[in-house]
């Protein structure tokens, strides 16, 4: 896991002000983060060998000291860091960790199997 390359040029784009229309903004990189929009869809290849097959919305919070905390409301995974990129990297690593843990639990519990099925609708190992 430590050696895994995290592709930080994955796609994050600003949420369109008009949700009924496609966003006119072309897909910026993670460096185009705007603090005015605290919710972002994450999708595509998020790390080497891992991809999101549909957007997963990530909330961006800040602690009082400016520390970043990113999280999703579906799987309750969070990432943290001194910078947005650090927190995003931490979130991606945590999400993959979570996938592997739930996958292991799914082998012995029908309840976790259902959770794993839901998780796999979003995150899965990229096709070789």
């Amino acid at each position: 896991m430590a050696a895994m390359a995290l592709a930080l040029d994955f796609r994050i784009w600003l949420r369109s002000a008009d949700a009924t229309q496609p966003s006119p903004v072309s897909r910026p990189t993670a460096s185009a983060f705007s603090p005015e929009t605290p919710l972002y869809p994450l999708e595509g290849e998020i790390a080497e060998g891992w991809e999101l097959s549909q957007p997963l919305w990530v909330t961006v919070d800040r602690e009082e000291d400016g520390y970043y905390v990113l999280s999703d409301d579906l799987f309750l995974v969070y990432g943290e860091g001194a910078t947005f990129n650090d927190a995003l990297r931490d979130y991606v690593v945590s999400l993959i960790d979570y996938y592997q843990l739930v996958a292991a639990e799914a082998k012995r519990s029908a309840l976790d199997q259902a959770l794993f099925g839901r998780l796999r609708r979003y995150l899965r190992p990229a096709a070789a």
Partner: protein
Amino acid sequence: MARNPGEISRCLQSKFDFAPAKNRSPDHQWYELHLPGLPTILTKLSHGKKDIGAKLEGKIARQLRVRTQFFRKMIDCTRSREDYYQQVRTDPYPPWEIRF
């Protein structure tokens, strides 16, 4: 009141019977709790020594399926293990999405 990950980790393990999970990231430690009739409860703590702020507290509380106030009482030892187990069964927050 700021808390550090070590304090929370010790409390979760010694008082609430969470066990370290076999995650692979060297930066985090996940903890798991198996309760009959519920999906596995998983929560993550980072290895860093930085105290946990209010936002992070909220995220951890959510992973434990309780509100932040209840989580604080867990760590402050004013909520027992039975209180917590009862809480996640009767009033989990956020609610369990899986319906059987």
